[in-house]
């Protein structure tokens, strides 16, 4: 069955450092991969999308890579700030059919001032 793995342990880093979060998947061939941010008590918020034929995507301090051979995506936040503290979810999209996203369980990021 399809499986998405994100590090369940919280990631703690110092302000100003680069945070790197990992998303691994098995038994899936996604057309797109998305990253969302979720704050406590709120719904996920879309951040970035990368297509299977793209290696890297950037948006301001965010960078996403997508390696379909390794079946892995890395999500980087450069010059991290305490306001970046949240849970980050990766989501896979098969690109056809109902287009419901398959989500990982998320990684909680804590940026210390």
């Amino acid at each position, binding site marked *: 069955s399809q499986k*998405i793995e994100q590090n*369940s342990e919280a990631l703690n880093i110092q302000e100003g450092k680069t945070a790197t979060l990992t998303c691994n998947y098995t038994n899936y061939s996604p057309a*797109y991969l*998305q990253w969302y941010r979720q704050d406590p*008590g*709120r*719904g*996920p*918020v*879309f951040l970035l*999308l990368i*297509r299977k034929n793209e290696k890297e995507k950037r948006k301001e301090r965010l960078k996403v890579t997508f390696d379909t051979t390794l079946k892995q995506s890395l999500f980087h936040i450069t010059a991290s700030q305490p306001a970046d503290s949240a849970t980050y*979810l990766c*989501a896979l*999209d098969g690109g056809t059919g*109902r*287009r*419901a*996203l*398959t*989500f*990982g*369980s*998320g990684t909680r990021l804590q940026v210390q001032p």
Partner: protein
Amino acid sequence: GAGVSQSPSNKVTEKGKDVELRCDPISGHTALYWYRQSLGQGLEFLIYFQGNSAPDKSGLPSDRFSAERTGGSVSTLTIQRTQQEDSAVYLCAIRQGAYNEQFFGPGTRLTVL
């Protein structure tokens, strides 16, 4: 999010009771999804509405769950004879972009005692 409202924000009910959860998206979005998020888990797809097509109910966990969408806008998720394992946050989302970026509501936290 501003484009999707959900009510109630919190619902506490007794085991065996029926509950109705409401999703009210801004107009003009044809694709609407319901997901469920249990504590510490990723989002689990429940049901998908696309225009006037028959809904994709393949994610509903049991026949106690049902949903409808009236007038192509407001959607209601109904859980009959609630069980404690139904306790979760129920999230509604609309398709936002060309690549299936999704815009989530704030969710309804359901607690079954």
